[in-house]
């Protein structure tokens, strides 16, 4: 049995090992099987990717040179992003898509031409969407000198990706984001855990909430009302969290 870690290289190594040895990859929910596997557990950590790729190339006569080009990096990036998804079936989708890349060609996989590579892209798209939305929708409150704090609802494990985006925006600030599961902060490029109790007090309303509400109302052109479009841009699940959600609700 092949075990792997949540890392793109490890996943590709696991796929190559499974093809070369014929062993089974343990994906989600399969950890119980390890109890019965005895010594027959192969960990991807003890193998080199280049060596495995070379062996695969010789054994299956397939071109794997793309692994060392930007296309290989692109596939790794897709896997890295897809691993942040909260879906339970993400590992099996990733392995099927990796198989497409090795069997049908890297471009076939990257362009999402098969069902599984399309699903892989869809996982990435969900994660990227959440990051993009949160970068726009999160509202900070100042928490002392050069510190900003916000609470946000997140479906996927995107908190670190979002913090990185905010670091470029506020390079001299400590940025803290709190979710229901954890609280993380970024400062000087370093991401670390923080205690949410230290920042809860700063999340109260301030004058700028009403400034924003007034400004938001002033931008609405009533004859062009298109609530369906607005709801597709700000999904209803965010309406209770965002301040302007009440205004959108009142227009329904």
């Amino acid at each position: 049995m092949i075990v792997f870690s949540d890392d793109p290289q490890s996943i590709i190594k696991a796929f190559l090992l499974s093809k070369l040895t014929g062993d089974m990859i343990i994906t989600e929910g399969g950890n119980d099987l390890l109890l019965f596997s005895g010594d027959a557990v192969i960990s991807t950590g003890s193998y080199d990717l280049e060596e495995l790729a070379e062996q695969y190339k010789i054994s299956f006569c397939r071109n794997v040179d793309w692994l060392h080009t930007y296309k290989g990096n692109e596939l790794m990036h897709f896997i890295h992003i897809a691993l942040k998804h909260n879906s339970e079936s993400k590992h099996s989708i990733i392995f099927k898509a990796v198989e497409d890349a090795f069997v049908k060609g890297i471009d076939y996989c990257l362009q999402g031409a098969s069902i599984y590579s399309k699903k892989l892209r869809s996982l990435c798209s969900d994660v990227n969407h959440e990051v993009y939305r949160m970068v726009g929708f999160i509202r900070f409150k100042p928490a002392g000198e050069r510190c900003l704090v916000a609470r946000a609802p997140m479906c996927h494990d995107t908190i670190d990706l979002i913090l990185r985006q905010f670091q470029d925006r506020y390079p001299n600030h400590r940025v803290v984001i709190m979710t229901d599961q954890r609280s993380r902060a970024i400062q000087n490029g370093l991401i670390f855990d923080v205690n949410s109790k230290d920042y809860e007090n700063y999340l109260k309303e301030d004058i700028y909430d009403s400034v924003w509400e007034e400004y938001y109302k002033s931008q609405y052109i009533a004859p062009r009302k298109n609530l369906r479009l607005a709801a597709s841009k700000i999904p209803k699940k965010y309406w209770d969290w965002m301040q302007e959600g009440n205004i959108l609700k009142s227009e329904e």
Partner: protein
Amino acid sequence: MDIKKLSILGEAAKYDICSSSAASGRKISKADMGNTLPSGVCHSFTPDGRCVSLLKVLMTNECEKDCSYCPNRVQRDVPRTSFAPEELSRLFIDMYERNFIEGLFLSSGVRHGTSDTIEGMLKTVEILRLKYRFGGYIHLKILPGASEQYIERAAGLADRLSLNLEAPNEERLRILSKSKNYNRDLLTPIRNIAKIVEKSQGTTHTTQFIVGAAQESDKELLASVNDLYKSYNLKRAYFSAFNPVYGTPLENVAPAPRIRENRLYQSDFLMRFYNFKFKDFYFDDNGNLDLDLDPKLMYAVRNPQLFPIEVNRASFQQLLQVPGIGPKSARKILEVRRQYRIKSPEELKSMGISLKRCQKFITISGRCYDSSRWLMSPHRYEYEQLSMFKEVSL
């Protein structure tokens, strides 16, 4: 803080459509706050579905111009107010810090002459860039008749400059404004902007047209846009469907249909990203685009000899002519084709291509999956249910 002032000056600026915050490059080094992203960020959406990404305000809504469509025209009785540069820059920084907005869109009514007004606008932006070391996105409106010296200063500070042409030519502008001269006040500054922006790295310029206020045709608008892209290095043109404003000379003019605005945007995108030329658009007898068929579909209908094309052999340019296939999809097809022959419509569907739109115009490995008969009569006939009691003239 005077929230009412923000409301008045925000509302006065809302008819400027451009809300893009996409930019590349920084205007200052070692910014204390703010960055620009090539894709831009939307921070909210109003109930009309438009993106709110910028603090879009006027410096003042006091205006000495008489534009007959404008809610801020001199003759109109509305509350007037203005921002001081320090006040507006502080408000902006506080809102940016809280992540309400992505950048600033600063326009203004003309008060005490163009130079005086632009001076105030430039001072605001200078405070942001130099005092607060703001490195994010700033869009600065250039007022009609602005001199080259002001444009040069503005280009050094802002990521985007724009001057609204509003009408496609001098004749149409005369319907909208008696006090503006098309060549002197609009085209000459645009020419200067184009010249300066070319030298200033990371700065782009745009313009906006009002659709339907001066009874202009789509042909006139697109001819003007085509000329701006060719000769003035314009980044893009915006179109705003006319909505009559109470208390203006055009208050009784019918609003322009939104679909017309949509067709103009589609044509604009075809020119910018699909290599379509002005001659590739088809207009009716009044010079307007078809409201039922989009411009690309209309091109396909008028050129049936070009279709169907084989997706495994067609060039990038040929793929771009197929309705439902855009530059991104065309590139995907080319990438996949390098190692793999596309065999079924499902593969195209998985790549995100709309089969419903493109299937009539393509073959996949020599096989056509839809009838091209539709091309012969694309307009749907509207059948009317006759009434038994209605008088019918025989």
